């Protein structure tokens, strides 16, 4: 049995968990190709024109998997991974959207409804449908979930150490060793990079922004490097948090970055037309004035040019470096 993972959306974050889970069930995991222009175009052609670029990219990845020899494509309906928040409505309707925009996918979707209370998604009853489709029993599922949650803990530990999601998942799955990765810890500038994993880590949408910043001597900190406890504490202190899990995480992280004196500035990467970010963006914009810390918003979509991104982060970094040097009395 081979199951295809579209290399898009929250895949970047949950890959170590899901891969271990399926491997433990004795199922081979097949990844779609790396994001490419042709793949994106395929997605753009079938997705609704108005929708955000990550969904278009996801659609492209599903097409790519249809061309490969897989039995099922894994498109979970992510509803909750914590008690009081859910996902963006587009995630809740994702299986349907894919089914209606790519009719060829009918009967080949593996779509459990995830309604878990934590990120390990260890609510066994969510996977009941696997019994008939994959021919596994609940005992095996329980065992696989346990194993997956071990890997997940390892993965999160690496994240907290400052590794990006892609690095941490390779480390957690034993594909890399720590000495092979340089996270630029000693850089003079530290920037908080806010954005969903599918915008930051997709090589086409985010255009490798983390590496671009590191190359310019910046230590990059993202939301997954901030401890869950810190984020939860912030969110609990808000009277009415936002409705979306990852948006709340970004909010918590942004708040942490604003209060952390080591962080020199914030960059918010958001997709054109992103609903949750439209509200979060305003909140952190208002906060930015309060905390007197620079914030830059970069909006990406299928038309974004790489040089645009480079110019803007370069200018932002230069500005921060100059400000810092001035404060230190070095002179620009």
């Amino acid at each position, binding site marked *: 049995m081979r199951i295809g993972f579209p290399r898009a959306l929250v895949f970047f974050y949950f890959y170590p968990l899901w891969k271990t889970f399926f491997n433990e069930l004795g199922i081979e995991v097949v990844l779609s190709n790396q994001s490419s222009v042709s793949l994106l175009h395929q997605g753009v052609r079938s997705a609704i024109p108005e929708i955000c670029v990550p969904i278009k990219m996801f659609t492209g990845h599903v097409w790519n998997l249809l061309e490969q020899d897989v039995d099922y494509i894994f498109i979970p309906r992510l509803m909750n991974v914590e008690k009081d928040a859910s996902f963006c*409505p587009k995630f809740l309707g994702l299986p349907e959207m894919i089914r209606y925009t790519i009719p060829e996918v009918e009967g080949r979707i593996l779509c459990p409804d995830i309604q878990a209370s934590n990120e390990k998604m260890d609510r066994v009853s969510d996977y009941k449908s696997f019994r008939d489709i994959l021919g596994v029993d609940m005992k095996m599922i329980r065992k696989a979930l346990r194993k997956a949650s071990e890997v997940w803990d390892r993965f999160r530990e690496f994240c907290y150490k400052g590794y990006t999601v892609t690095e941490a998942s390779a480390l957690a799955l034993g594909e890399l060793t720590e000495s092979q990765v340089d996270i630029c810890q000693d850089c003079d500038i530290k920037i908080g990079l806010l954005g969903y994993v599918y915008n930051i880590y997709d090589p086409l949408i985010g255009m490798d922004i983390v590496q671009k910043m590191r190359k310019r001597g910046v230590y990059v900190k993202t939301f997954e490097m901030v401890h869950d406890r810190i984020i939860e504490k912030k969110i609990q202190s808000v009277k009415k948090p*936002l409705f979306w899990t990852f948006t709340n995480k970004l909010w918590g992280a942004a708040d942490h970055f604003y209060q952390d004196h080591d962080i020199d500035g914030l960059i918010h990467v958001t997709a054109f*037309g992103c609903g949750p970010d439209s509200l979060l963006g305003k909140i952190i914009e208002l906060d930015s004035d309060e905390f007197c810390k620079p914030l830059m918003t970069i909006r990406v979509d299928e038309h974004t040019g790489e040089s645009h991104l480079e110019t803007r982060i370069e200018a932002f970094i230069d500005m921060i470096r100059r400000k810092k040097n001035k404060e230190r009395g070095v002179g620009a």
Partner: protein
Amino acid sequence: MKVTFPYMGTIAVYKKVFEMLGHEVIVPPRPSQRTIDLGVKHSPEFVCFPFKVIIGSYIEAVELGADTVITSGGNGPCRAGYYGEIHRRILKSIGYDADVIIFDSMFKDFKDFYRKIIKIKASTSIASALNILKINYHMICKMDELEKRTKILRAYEKIPGEVSRVWKQINESFDKSYTEVEIKRVAKECSEMLESVSQRLFTDQDRIRIGIVGEIYVTMEPSINMDVEERLGNMGIEVENSQYISNWVQHNARPKWAGKSYAQKLMDKGAAFIAKGLGGHEQENIGCMVDYAERGFDGIIHLMPFGCLPELVTQSTIPLISKKYDIPILTLSIDEQTGRSNSLTRMEAFVDLVKNRKKRKQYSNTLLMSDSKTTPISMKTS
């Protein structure tokens, strides 16, 4: 307290509730270009259009002297449930000192809910406050009923603009009635007023019916949806809208023992296409489209604000619904960038398509009924 509220649809009822509770009510002006400009200036760029219009009308109301904004909250995951929180911060950040009171579900934080109720009901006793709500519920039901009729009647009015004029009068007379008896009387009078509108003759075959579905704000508020309904009516088309305040109240305040609300029945139909609710009106809208198709409507117009999260999912089901039920559906997404003429041209083209389709259908029906070999020729010569 000088109270104001979001401007949406038939506003007579919100005005009356607060008035009867003894507050001074500042009715925000009907959304205009200025409202939209103000809203766009102070809102995040990619927030949905209703957010921008509503903040614009809050600003206009505060300029007129309002000091308290009363609105509803929500539990998501649709953005609309969070409007109030951000509106409050925006109003503060641009220096308007208005209190924003947001009603969230009472099951989440009853104490908070109760405190707000006490604040708003002011010196009115609970019994009379409940009575006020009852009277207003009664009124909105009557008004919605009449409004539904105007949307059909407008297609056949002899004097252009007469129905709209009568509807304006209806609003005014309801505005002046404060008791249940009066409301009953006014409703009867208004009903007679509508009956006396002179109509042109039409046969059942000429009737073209278009249903409107979509996000609640853009479907209910004519000032920001380019008066879609009135324009269609002027083209001689019967219109039915899926969203009414009375429906919303019935759906949200109906006790379980009273059976399923109409909206719930529609949602069950929609659930065949979208298994889980997304926090907006997506299941209801899909159910409604199916319902329109089953009731033999000739076309459907789907309205949404640009980038609306739940309606984007609805939109993805439209090709399937259109094919399965053999009904043309047009989606228009609306925001401050919408070119009026562009949308109107598209609407006109859609109406032409719907009309031609109906004619062709009738033509092929007559073919089926008569002798198939000879009729085409005789039809041609006629």
